[in-house]
């Protein structure tokens, strides 16, 4: 789950990481009030979950009320790379002497946490990594040990920041590591981490991704759910607890297991169709889940046929079959359905479906046959 900048800053503030004073607002009047409260000059910043806000004109300095009005009204409602700006963050402007980069994330190859610190902040870290990898000081942290102040200090020294920034950086990085672990973050990134002319170190941006699997121990995550960007289909699927990714094709896909679902999406493409979505009903899904999945797919106006690909390990064939039958009773499914059903209790499942088969509901023996049939029923290749 990706957080907006202001949410990331609020999280950082909870852990004592210095961030600029500010307010999140949704209207021009609110923007003005926030600017008055915080004191000029302010920065008006679009809050969207994509990068490149500055280039798109979504980050503007304002020195007086007229400029706040002008920038806020331009930025609120602006489209940045397909994301509409609904929220704007009005922040007290900072004087910047130096811009640094700092982050913690999991290094999957090393199976350790990776801290990255660079004196070259304010730019894309991937560019720095490409062009000047030595400019990034790296530290691996063993989750069992945590980050010691001694190791943190050595790491900061290796990054060769302005000496005036050392103490501030060490303190912030220790707190950033705490935030990263305690909040169950996949990523905590500050870019830029700035050194002000009066020698303070300060987080000017916040990019935080939280681990969805940790929701059970973070009731506070619920507040972030409301600002997650999902299209209607994705929101409906999310509300039903389904793993769903919207794509832009016309063959609806339902499968059990992420690998099989990804594979089914790939195969629809391979046989000349275009998948409308990825949907994994997960292991052990019951009839209710199956019915819910069909309803979500059915509500996608682009869908012209539905491909259900099930290979049951933990998922049982009769649950799948009952789910399909229930869905057909609950809602008029607009598109023809093709099913491939194998694995645990597949025979029972197929037996249940037997009496419901028609030209709108058919069984196919293999994944490829089912995919080809689904594409044909949808009216042929893309």
């Amino acid at each position, binding site marked *: 789950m990706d957080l907006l900048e202001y949410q990331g800053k609020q999280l950082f503030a909870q852990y004592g990481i210095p961030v600029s004073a500010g307010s999140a607002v949704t209207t021009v009047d609110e923007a003005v009030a926030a600017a008055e409260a915080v004191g000029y000059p302010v920065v008006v910043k679009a809050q969207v979950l994509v990068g490149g806000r500055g280039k798109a004109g979504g980050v503007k300095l304002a020195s007086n009320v007229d400029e706040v009005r002008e920038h806020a009204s331009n930025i609120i409602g602006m489209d940045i790379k397909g994301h509409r700006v609904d929220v704007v963050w009005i922040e007290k402007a900072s004087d910047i002497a130096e811009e640094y980069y700092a982050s913690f994330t999991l290094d999957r190859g090393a199976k350790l946490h990776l801290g990255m610190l660079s004196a070259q902040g304010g730019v894309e870290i991937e560019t720095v990594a490409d062009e000047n990898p030595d400019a990034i000081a790296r530290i691996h942290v063993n989750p069992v040990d945590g980050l010691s102040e001694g190791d943190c200090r050595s790491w900061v020294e290796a990054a060769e920041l302005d000496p005036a920034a050392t103490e501030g950086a060490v303190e912030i990085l220790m707190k950033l590591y705490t935030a990263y672990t305690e909040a169950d973050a996949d990523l905590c990134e500050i870019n830029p981490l700035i050194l002000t002319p009066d020698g303070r170190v300060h987080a000017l941006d916040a990019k935080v991704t939280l681990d969805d699997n940790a929701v059970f121990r973070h009731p506070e995550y619920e507040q972030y759910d409301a600002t997650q960007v999902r299209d209607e289909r994705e929101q409906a699927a999310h509300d039903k607890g389904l793993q769903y990714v919207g*794509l832009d094709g016309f063959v609806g896909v339902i499968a059990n*297991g*992420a690998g099989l679902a*990804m*594979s089914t999406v790939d195969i629809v493409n*391979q046989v000349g169709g275009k998948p409308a979505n990825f949907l994994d009903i997960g292991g052990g899904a019951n009839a209710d889940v199956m019915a819910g999945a069909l309803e979500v797919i059915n509500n996608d106006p682009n869908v012209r046929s539905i491909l259900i690909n099930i290979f049951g*390990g*933990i998922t049982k064939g009769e649950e799948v079959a009952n789910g399909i039958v229930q869905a057909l009773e609950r809602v008029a499914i607009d598109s023809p359905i093709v099913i491939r059903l194998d*694995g645990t209790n597949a025979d029972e499942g197929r037996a249940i479906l037997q009496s419901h088969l028609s030209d709108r509901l058919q069984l196919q023996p293999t994944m490829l046959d089912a995919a080809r049939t689904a594409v044909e029923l949808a009216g042929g290749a893309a």
Partner: protein
Amino acid sequence: MSIFVDETTKVVYQGLTGSQGRFYGLLNKEYGTQVVAGTNPKKAGTDVEGIPIFAGVADAVQETGATASCVFIPAPGVKDAVLDAARGGVEFIVVITEGVPAHDEAWFYNKLKRDFPNVQLLGPNCPGIISPGKANIGITAGHIAKAGGPVGIVSRSGTLTYQALYELQQKDIGVTTCVGIGGDPVPGTSFIDCLRAFEADDETKAVMMIGEIGGSAEEEAAAFIAESVSKPVVSYVAGVTAPAGKKMGHAGAIISGSKGTAQAKMDALREAGVKVGLNPTEAGELMADIIKELGL
């Protein structure tokens, strides 16, 4: 032969009294796995169809001599369950559970490496391991696997594992062991661990490796294959058409920026001499050709 587990492996099921643990524990027992105990701190002294329940793994090991455990405990309790198993003295821990926080996984992976180096972890978020005809630990539908080798399978995806077992069974090709390493970002057992074991196993003559987007495990495996694997390898990688930045079901299946794409993995594998199928059926056909070429 088989790798990691066989018909003599005694397994304690952590969570045997829960609905999933019970369903699969009993199925595994029916298959022939030595399901010798279960654990539940609140139900010690009871039994599940005659299988004794102990408070913790240490007690189970003491009474039954179990050397492996299988975890069906819900995600919030997995970290403690893994530690309980390691401290209890088992050497192989299979974690079926999905939804374990990445920080917990990173923690117990490193805790085991440091304090329990003889313990091998499989998973989390995996279907388990099956040596057909000998032992099935986890949720794979055993009837789809043909016993006797000569193919070894290692996979990040559960259902694609079943698909692979099925494709091979249709072609009358047997499997020595099928290892599901799972879809999470910090898996206890890697592709390389399995490839190394298959290379050393006389009965395994070829390996099927099933990967997916996210991380660099396939690329690392490709480098290992080029250096240290003499047996033929066939691979399939799911997620060729997955969009970047979206988690495709598995916690570990996400393309970050330009890293972790299926195409990059397929290229790395091909470069290492691996035959790459574009879908599971094609991978099955490539394997069938290899088996024929080997005269098996």
